[in-house]
C-alpha cells in the first residue's frame, strides 16, 4: 500500500469514528429535546445524560484529528478546501462551539437548565451534521470553479442542487437512526425498559427515511457525477453487504433480541457503506482538481506522520478501552448506581 493510500485510509477511519460517536451524541440531543416537547423527558433524560457526560469532549477530538491529519498528509487540501469552505465550515464551527460549551455549562453547573436550552441542544445537533455534510457534496465536484487561479465556490448552485439536499437529508436521518439504535441498547443495559423501548420505536421509524434518502442520493449522483456513480456500482458488493446488515439490525430490533449485536451490525453496516463511498471516491479529494496523489506531502513528512500515528495509537487504544469499560459497558454506571462525579 502506498503511503498516500495508507494516510487517507487512516483518516477516513477516524472520520468514520467521528460519524458514529458524533451521531450518537447529536441524535441523543435531538431525542432529548423531542421528549421534552411531548412530555416524555422523564423516560430519556437520565440515560442520555449518563452516556453523554464523560464522552462529549472525546467526540470532538475525532473531528480535530481528521482535519489536522488531512492538512498534514495532503497540504494542498488546505489550499483548496481552506479557500472555499470559509463560510460553511465557520457556521459548523460556531454551532459546534455553542453546543459543546453549553453542554458543559448545563451539566456541570449546579442548576439544571431550562427548556429552551434543551431545544437548542437538540436543534444544533441536527444542523451540525447537515452543515458538515455539505463538504462531501462539494467534494463531488461541479460546485467549484477556478477563477484567476483561485478556487471559488458557487454557493447558489450548491444550495439549489438536489444532490446537496439529499446528502443533507441522509446525514440527518443517519444521525437519528444510529443514535436510536445505540440508545436502545444503552437503555436496556441501564435496565431502563421504557427508555429502551421508546428508542427502539424511533429506530424502526427512522429506518424508512434512511433507505429513501440513500436511494435519493444514488439517483442524484448518477446525473451529477457519473464517474463516481460508476465506481460505486463496481463496488456493489460492499453496499449489498451494508444492506444485508441493515436488515439484520432491523430484524433484531423487531424481535427485541440481542440489542448489543444490533449495535455492532449497525456500525459494520455504516462501515461498509462509508468505505464503499470513500473507495469509489478515490483518488479524488476534490473532484476533479485535487487527488490524493498530487496533493500528497513529501515522503519524509509522511513517514514521520505515520510513526507519530502509531505512537499515538499505542496511547489511545488503552485509554479508550478504559472509557468503554468504566462508562459504556459498566452496568452499575449506566443505571446510575455509581455516581462519582466530581
Amino acid at each position, binding site marked *: 500500500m502506498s503511503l498516500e493510500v495508507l494516510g487517507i485510509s487512516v483518516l477516513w477511519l477516524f472520520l468514520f469514528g467521528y460519524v458514529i460517536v458524533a451521531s450518537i451524541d447529536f441524535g441523543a440531543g435531538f431525542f432529548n429535546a423531542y421528549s421534552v416537547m411531548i412530555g416524555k423527558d422523564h423516560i430519556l433524560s437520565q440515560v442520555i445524560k449518563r452516556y453523554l457526560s464523560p464522552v462529549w469532549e472525546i467526540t*470532538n477530538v475525532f473531528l480535530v484529528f481528521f482535519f489536522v491529519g488531512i492538512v498534514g498528509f495532503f497540504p494542498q487540501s488546505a489550499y483548496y478546501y481552506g479557500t472555499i469552505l470559509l463560510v460553511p465550515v465557520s457556521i459548523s464551527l460556531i454551532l459546534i462551539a455553542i453546543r459543546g460549551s453549553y453542554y458543559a455549562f448545563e451539566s456541570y453547573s449546579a442548576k439544571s437548565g431550562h427548556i429552551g436550552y434543551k431545544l437548542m441542544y437538540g436543534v444544533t445537533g441536527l444542523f451540525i451534521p447537515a452543515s458538515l455534510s455539505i463538504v462531501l457534496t462539494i467534494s463531488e465536484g461541479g460546485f467549484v470553479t477556478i477563477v484567476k487561479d483561485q478556487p471559488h465556490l458557487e454557493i447558489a448552485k450548491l444550495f439549489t442542487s438536489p444532490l446537496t439536499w439529499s446528502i443533507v437529508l441522509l446525514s440527518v436521518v443517519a444521525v437519528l437512526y444510529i443514535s436510536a439504535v445505540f440508545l436502545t441498547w444503552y437503555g436496556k443495559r441501564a435496565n431502563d425498559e421504557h427508555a429502551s423501548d421508546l428508542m427502539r420505536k424511533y429506530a424502526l421509524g427512522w429506518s424508512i427515511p434512511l433507505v429513501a434518502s440513500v436511494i435519493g442520493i444514488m439517483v442524484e449522483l448518477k446525473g451529477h457525477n457519473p464517474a463516481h456513480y460508476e465506481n460505486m456500482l463496481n463496488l456493489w458488493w460492499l453496499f449489498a453487504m451494508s444492506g444485508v446488515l441493515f436488515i439484520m439490525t432491523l430484524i433484531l430490533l423487531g424481535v427485541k433480541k440481542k440489542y448489543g449485536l444490533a449495535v455492532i451490525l449497525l456500525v459494520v453496516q455504516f462501515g461498509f457503506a462509508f468505505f464503499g463511498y470513500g473507495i469509489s471516491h478515490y483518488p479524488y479529494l476534490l473532484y476533479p482538481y485535487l487527488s490524493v496523489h498530487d496533493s500528497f506531502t513529501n515522503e519524509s513528512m509522511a513517514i514521520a506522520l505515520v510513526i507519530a500515528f502509531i505512537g499515538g495509537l499505542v496511547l489511545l487504544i488503552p485509554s479508550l478501552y478504559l472509557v468503554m469499560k468504566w462508562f459504556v459497558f459498566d452496568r452499575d454506571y449506566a443505571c446510575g448506581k455509581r455516581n462519582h462525579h466530581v
Partner: protein
Amino acid sequence: MNDSAVFWSRALTELTLSFHIIYATIGVGIPLMIMIAQWVGIKNNDEHYLLLARRWARGFVITVAIGVVTGTAIGLQLSLLWPNFMELAGQIIALPLFMETFAFFVEAIFLGLYLYTWDRFKNPKRHLLLLVPVAIGASMSAVFITIVNAFMNAPQGFDIVDGELINIQPVLAMFNPAMPTKVAHVLVTSYMTAAFLLASIAAYRMLRGSAHVYHKKALYLLMKLGLVFSLAALVVGDFSGKYLAEYQPEKLAAAEWHFETEEDASLVLFGVLDGEDIKYAIKIPYALSVLAHNNPFAEVTGLDQFPKDEQPPLYIHYLFDVMVMIGTLLIVVAAVYVLGKWRNWQFVSSKLFKRVIVAGGPLALIAIEAGWWLAEVGRQPWILRGYMKTSEGATTSGQVDTMLILFAGLYIVLAIGSIIALIRMFRDNPIERELAEHKLVEGCEEP
C-alpha cells in the same frame, strides 16, 4: 492578493487567539495545580486540600470546554484564513500539529475518567494517577502548538531550490532555535497564571468575609507556586532575550526601540516616540546589552540593519513593557507574601494586600495577552519569517469580515456563559456548606 481579506483574516485570527489563549492558559496551568493540591491532601490526609482539588476540577471543566471549542476553531481557521500558508507550512511542520491532536486526545479521555471516578477507588492515589495524563496531555498540547509557532519565527529543516521545497526534515523543523525558550516560556507562564488566578479567587473570598482556614491554606500554597513559576518565567524571559538577539534581532530591536546598532545598549522602558527620538522614557544603562548577550558592553543589532518593509510595528514596545512590568510585580507580590507569612509580617494579611492579590489574577492574564501580541505582531510582516509574508499567506475570500462578526458574537456568548456558569457553580455551593455536608456524609470528627 486581496488586501481587505488580509486585514480581516488578521483581525479574526487575532480575535480567536486572544480569546482562546485565556482558556488555553488556564487549561494548561490548572491541572497541575489540581494535581499538587490533591497530592498534598492525600499525603497530609487533609480534607481541605482534597476539596480544593475537587472544586478546582469542577471549575476547570467549564474553562476546558471553552478551550476545546475555541481550540477547534483556531485549528480550522488556520486553514480557512491562511490556506496558502498552511499549504506551504503543512509540508514542513505538520508533525507537531498532528502530535498535538494525540496529546489533546489523551487529555480529553483522562479528564472524563478523572471527573467521573471521584471516590470510586479505595486507594485515593489511584484516582490521582488518572490526573497525571490530563496534566501531561495539557502541557504537551501547549508544547506541540508552541513548536509550530516557534517554527514560524525561526523556520528550518528544509531548503528551497527553484521554488521547490526539498530536503524536508520534520524533526529538525520542530527543534528550531526558537523552540526551547518559547516552549519553556509558555509552560511556566501558564502555571504561573493559573496559580495567580486561583490565588485571586481565594483572596477575593477572604475579602468577602470568609475566614475559613480552607482559603488560607489555598492562598499560601498558591503564592508559593506563583513565586516559583514567576521566577522561572523571569529566567526563561532572559533566555528569550538572548534568543531574539541572535535569531530575530529586528523583533528585539522594535520591542526595545533600539534604532542604532551600538555597544553598551540601554534598556528603554515606557516613553513616547517622536520620529526616532525617544521621550519621557526610563533608560536602564547597559541593561539591553545584558539582556541580549549577558555582557554590558556587547553590541546589540538595531533596526538600522533592516529594510523599512521588514520592520515590525513599533507599538510592540508597550506590549513588552506591560508584560515585563506585570511579571515583575507578580514576583514581588508573591515573594513578599511568602516571606511575610514566614516572618509573621502582619500587613500581608491586611485587606489592602489581599486586594493586590485579587488584582494579580487578571493582571497575569493581561500579561499573557500582551506577551502573545508581542510575539505575533513582533514577527510581522512575516507569517513564516524570511520565507512568506503574512499578506501572501491569507485567503482571498471576500467574506472574512462577516465571519469576524459571527465569531465575535460567538465569543461574547461563550465568555458570558462561562462566567455565569462558574459564578453559579460556586455561589450555589460555598465551601462552608460543602465542608459541612462532607462531614455529615463521612461522619468524621473535627480534628
